[in-house]
């Protein structure tokens, strides 16, 4: 607007941040992906990414991320929906957020005890007559702990979308004779789809790249793209190969963002700017 003289003041720090910490790091990752361990310019990293080892890794990484996202959404949507119906909904939402404030590592560490052979879950299984099970270091424990970690981030955008929902639309739908399910599938769900999409975005992409939980809970049995990158960067010190995997992870990230963002922007622009 008529803020011309002030413009540099608020634009410069933010613009500097974008160039230095968004564009430059991605450019560096791409640049390094063309170098091998000896520092020679090469395409070998890309060749080895398409070898069966890395392809298998990518597919399994996607599969786990899908499972984690699916279960997060499955449990988060009803939670968010019921939360908006509570009397002090902001307070209850805050109570959902509190566990996400507790350090990620602490929560993960708790599950080492909970799922352990002598932990309470196994004690419960024993009482129920099922008997002791190896829970820790399995696919189940990995997916469960990941869902546990991510679910607040799925609840939050869905809650916001549901909270913004105009209640007269639901009333209108009821008045026009729609039953609860039709109202949900034709009115509530489409109108909260943006929340669901951003929920999927904030769960699926990090789920592709988990490495700490794989180490602590899955006992190195599950290897994700994230584990591979961490391995290449910090253990093998092969920044080239690490960068190459990172390039593909960034590519996947863009594809997922395109899928989950495409419609959202049009919709919000229609509603807001004009």
């Amino acid at each position, binding site marked *: 607007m008529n*803020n011309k003289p*002030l413009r540099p003041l*608020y634009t410069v*720090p*933010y613009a500097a*941040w974008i160039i*230095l*910490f*968004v564009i*430059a*790091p991605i450019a560096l*990752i791409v640049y*390094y992906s063309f170098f091998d361990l000896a520092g020679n310019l090469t395409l070998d990293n890309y060749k080895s990414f398409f070898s069966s080892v890395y392809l298998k890794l990518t597919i399994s990484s996607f599969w786990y991320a899908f499972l984690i996202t699916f279960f997060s959404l499955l449990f988060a949507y*009803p*939670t968010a929906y*019921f*939360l908006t*119906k*509570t*009397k002090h909904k*902001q307070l209850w939402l805050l109570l959902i*957020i*509190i*566990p996400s*404030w*507790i*350090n*990620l*590592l*602490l929560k*993960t*560490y*708790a599950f*080492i*005890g*909970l799922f*352990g052979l002598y*932990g*309470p879950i196994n004690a419960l299984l024993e009482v129920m007559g099922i008997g002791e099970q190896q829970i820790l270091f399995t696919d189940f424990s990995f997916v469960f702990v990941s869902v*546990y970690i991510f*679910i*607040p981030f799925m609840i939050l955008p869905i809650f916001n979308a549901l909270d913004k929902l105009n209640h007269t639309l639901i009333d209108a739908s009821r008045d026009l004779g729609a039953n609860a399910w039709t109202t949900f599938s034709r009115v509530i769900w489409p109108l909260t789809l943006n929340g669901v999409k951003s929920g999927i*975005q904030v769960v699926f*992409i990090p789920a592709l*790249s988990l*490495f*700490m939980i794989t180490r*602590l809970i899955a006992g190195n049995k599950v290897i994700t793209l*994230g584990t591979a*990158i*961490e391995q290449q*960067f910090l253990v093998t010190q092969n*920044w080239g190969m690490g*960068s190459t995997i*990172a390039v593909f*992870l*960034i590519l996947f*990230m863009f594809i997922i*963002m395109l899928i989950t963002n495409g419609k959202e922007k049009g919709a919000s622009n229609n509603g*807001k700017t004009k």
Partner: protein
Amino acid sequence: MGKLSKLPKIYLTVVFIILYAPIFYLIFYSFNSGGGMSDFESFSLEHYGAVFEDTRLLVILINTIVVALLSALVSTAIGVLGAVAILFMRNKAMRNAVLSLNNILIVSPDVIIGASFLILFTLIGVKLGFASVLISHIAFSIPIVVIMVLPKLQEMSPSLIDAALDLGATKRDVLTRVIIPFIKPGILAGFFLALTYSLDDFAVTFFVTGNGFSTLSVEIYSMARAGITLTINALSGLIFLVTVVLVIGYYMISRKTKSPLAGVRK
């Protein structure tokens, strides 16, 4: 309360139990005089004593808090400016491009942020340690603040600013008396989210921290890989206490700021 029927109540209760069970489990065993998380021998505060005697751990705790507060403050300042910059952008394509760039760090996997920042810092010669960790935390918190503040700014009707200007307010007045109070909930939310992200971050810090500097997450990771120590449990008890106090404080502040705003909005 009255609006919810029985089944949703049970569902929510189960969700809350699952969300809190691991935390209370940790805290419960922090009072165990034994050494493990399976047999509760007797009540003891020895592990809490161990936390306070462990100066190394205390230094790490202070590091973590300092990094979180500083990074949240700086990123909130830059983020609010960024949101204003985006709001005033005339060119729609440009604005969308900037928004996409903004969101890259939010959706970027931590591992990529960590790895790419590691390359960046090594290249431009930032020593790995406090500086690199702080800068990274500021960098990945900024987009969250923008996302929290921008909707509030967009919600604000331009006629509000015009009205203020017509009534003789200076640009400075418009900023301090109209814009900032209006977007305050967004700013607070952004600040607290930035704080959360910083306190919670493990992966990025793990990449950009040197040998001499460590945050709680990184320390707990190495402790947890070595096995169960109840010192971690005692630590989690303390962290939980601080978190709850912070959250109650935040809730009070947001209630106070919300009530007059609710009047404005309607």
